[in-house]
């Protein structure tokens, strides 16, 4: 029986390893084609390591740890390192590709030499349900060509037009099912798009819309195309066949007669992103605002939720008080709701025009004769709202931990102070509070660190807004560093500034490291950990 189970587990193990190795073998050539050196090294290191560990018995404990470790290394440690690398590159919209990829894209571009524009014929423009354009070129009865109209970038990847005699029954054009025939007016309305499209007939020949006719069929024209750019390896430059000029490399782009050719490629730029953060006035200003607010936001959130939580646990810390359990259950509720739901709900409540908060405050506004507060729309109101909501989200946790800590403080201490004539307030500030802080402060620092990166709340409640006017990058008054990074990289409306965003992330890393170091030092947790091992 034992033998059987051993062989079974062996079969299981070797099957898994075989699958794993098959994946590695599959991935390596792909990584080579895409020139992802990072992946190649990652895949190889992991592959070799796994095989050594599971085929030999020398690293027995690693057999247990390795699966988890691979995920942690690949998706936590490696991204952190990769992030550092990205922060030293110009990786951003227009510079996404590697140089080889960019050259590949550019060499696929075509142009039509002037002397090759010729033959004219009838042309019909169709549109399918997905609003893609299709052309029908009626060259002659043997060549009634039908196919999707594509832009220049897709010319090499699309299939050639096919002969469809069925489109002309009895010499009349009939629209095929599932397509819509564009009238002349509609063609004019779409003319900017249509100008860019062509029907690919063969490798070098295309049909393009030439003249739009409002009555009857429009006219198409055959064009032959040639490659626009050819990469010249000797000079490391691009040769433009249309203008017969050489376009040299200027940093991360080819430049033809002083004009940058898109796309460029990503290159190592050293500390350029960092110097941009600190020297470019239109980035440094907002970054300073964001960094300062990040600290204020995290600190105020902790202070307010701690104050409320402590107040409530002090109030309930009284023998003989009725309804204690009900109060406790209710105070925990905000903590039980997922933060993304709470943030959204509060956004509704705070809505300046329809929200409950303003309808509550309406009598107050009238009494004081002031304008209703435009919650989340002005700097001050947005900042107060964010703190208010975070207090709501955070106080239950503070309530829970302070309740626990209060109960662990020996009652005799307070009693003794009372005997010595201390007032309630004195014994609170001199005895209860200091003792409380000993056990609570590491948790407060943890909470500070959490709120320092509380992306969900900021992004869903205020979206970081209202926007700071006059900044080069998209940023708002309630943005914290992590949401600022998000806007730079993903959603800022100024393209994807991955390199710049990564450099901000490095700053966050450094700050988190400092916060953690303080926490470790302050609580000597490290020693406890050591003792624990």
């Amino acid at each position, binding site marked *: 029986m034992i033998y059987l189970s051993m062989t079974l587990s062996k079969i299981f193990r070797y099957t898994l390893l075989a699958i794993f190795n098959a994946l590695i073998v599959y991935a390596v050539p792909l990584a080579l084609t895409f020139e992802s050196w990072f992946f190649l090294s990652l895949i190889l290191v992991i592959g070799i390591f796994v095989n050594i560990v599971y085929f030999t018995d020398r690293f027995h404990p690693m057999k247990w740890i390795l699966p988890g470790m691979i995920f942690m290394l690949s998706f*936590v440690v490696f991204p952190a390192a990769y992030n550092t690398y990205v922060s030293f590159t110009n990786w951003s919209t227009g510079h996404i590709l590697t140089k080889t990829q960019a050259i590949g894209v550019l060499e696929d571009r075509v142009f039509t030499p002037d002397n090759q524009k010729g033959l004219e014929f009838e042309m019909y423009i169709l549109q399918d349900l997905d609003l893609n354009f299709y052309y029908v070129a009626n060259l002659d009865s043997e060549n009634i060509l039908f196919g999707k109209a594509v832009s220049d970038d897709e010319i090499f990847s699309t299939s050639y037009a096919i002969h469809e005699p069925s489109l002309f029954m009895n010499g009349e054009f009939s629209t095929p099912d599932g397509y819509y025939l564009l009238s002349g007016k509609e063609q004019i309305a779409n003319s900017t798009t249509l100008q860019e499209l062509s029907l690919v007939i063969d490798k070098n020949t295309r049909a393009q819309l030439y003249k739009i006719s409002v009555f009857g069929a429009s006219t198409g024209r055959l064009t032959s195309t040639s490659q626009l750019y050819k990469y010249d390896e000797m000079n490391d430059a691009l040769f433009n066949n249309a203008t017969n000029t050489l376009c040299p490399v200027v940093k991360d782009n080819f430049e033809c007669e002083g004009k940058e050719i898109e796309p460029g490629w990503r290159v190592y730029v050293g500390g350029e992103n960092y110097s941009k953060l600190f020297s470019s006035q239109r980035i440094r200003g907002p970054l300073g605002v964001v960094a300062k607010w990040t600290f204020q936001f995290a600190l105020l959130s902790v202070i307010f939720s701690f104050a409320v939580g402590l107040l409530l646990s002090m109030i309930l810390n009284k023998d003989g008080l009725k309804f204690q359990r009900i109060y406790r259950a209710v105070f925990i509720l905000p903590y039980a709701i997922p933060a993304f739901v709470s943030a959204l*709900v509060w956004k509704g409540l705070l809505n300046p025009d*329809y929200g409950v908060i303003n309808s509550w405050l309406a009598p107050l506004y009238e009494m004081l004769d002031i304008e209703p507060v435009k919650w989340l729309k002005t700097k001050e109101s947005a900042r107060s709202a964010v703190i208010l909501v975070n207090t709501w989200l955070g106080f239950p946790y503070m309530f829970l931990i302070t309740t626990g800590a209060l109960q662990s403080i020996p009652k005799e201490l307070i009693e003794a102070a009372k005997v010595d004539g201390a007032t309630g307030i004195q014994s609170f500030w001199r005895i209860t509070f200091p003792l409380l802080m000993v056990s609570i402060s590491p948790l407060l620092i943890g909470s500070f*660190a959490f709120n320092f990166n509380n992306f*969900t709340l900021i992004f869903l409640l205020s979206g970081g807004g209202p926007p700071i006017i006059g900044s080069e990058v998209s940023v708002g008054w309630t943005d914290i560093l992590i949401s600022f*990074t998000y806007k730079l990289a993903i959603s800022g409306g100024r393209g994807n500034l991955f390199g710049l965003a990564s450099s901000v992330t490095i700053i966050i890393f450094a700050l988190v490291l400092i916060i953690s170091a303080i926490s470790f030092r302050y609580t000597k947790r490290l020693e406890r950990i050591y003792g624990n091992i």
Partner: protein
Amino acid sequence: METSKFFNWVKEYGWRHLIALMFATFAVYPILFVATNSIADFANLTNSKLIPDGLTLKHYKLLSSDPLVPYFKWLYNTYKVALIAAFFNVFLGTLAAYAFSRLQFKGRRASLLTLVIVQMFPSFLAFVAIYLLFFQISDIAPFMGLGTHIGLILVYLGGSIGFNSWLIKGFMDTISPSLDEAAKVDGATDFQIFRKIIAPLSRPILVVIFVITFIGIYSDFILAAIFLKDKNLWTVAVGINTVFIDDFNADWGVIAASSVIAATPIAVLFIFFQKQITGGLTAGSVKG
């Protein structure tokens, strides 16, 4: 006599009730408001009240019938991703924890310390790198690239496995070593000790860690938001934000209904496991 007794009560207890009630209102009002609005007959935000005039399920029906808002698809996606990721997370974490707790090897202290240090940095901090990483993985292995659930699950797996194995290891340390030593004398292998003794005895902590990880992944917004572009693959957190934001006033009833559906299971789980989750053991790991 009666009045002085009352004043005594106020001095001792009454003011406590007053403040407690105030904050109880603060805590519970938004939740109640949304819960009642989700079944209120008139729920655009302007007309909304805490106590609705008439009850209806129309918002829930609307939620399930709008083809542009595949809410229940999102819900399904969320549960799928969170359950799978949490399961493997706990499974792999347990394996690692066993080695850290029971096997002697070089570099054990150092690896444990590394775990603690790595876990100081939430994994979403490097989201730019994760995005670019999976952007490139899409070329090589599209099935696990950007925009796929598999890719997202992989990221979630890496995110908390270190912290989890640390916690599980702490619990395993409290299981008496005499148990596995006796088994070893009887000729049991490591795997048998793990399967027959340590893993079953660790079940309480494994359940708690599973729940915590599940809640954490369920509530994640940032990684899911950068990862999932296709509307049909979104999780609830991403979907709820992008769609309902359009018209807060008119859609309020539906927003309330969707919030109730998204929040209730998590709230119930949380309250059920509240003691263990906040028992100091995991303080601050779910939310702060």
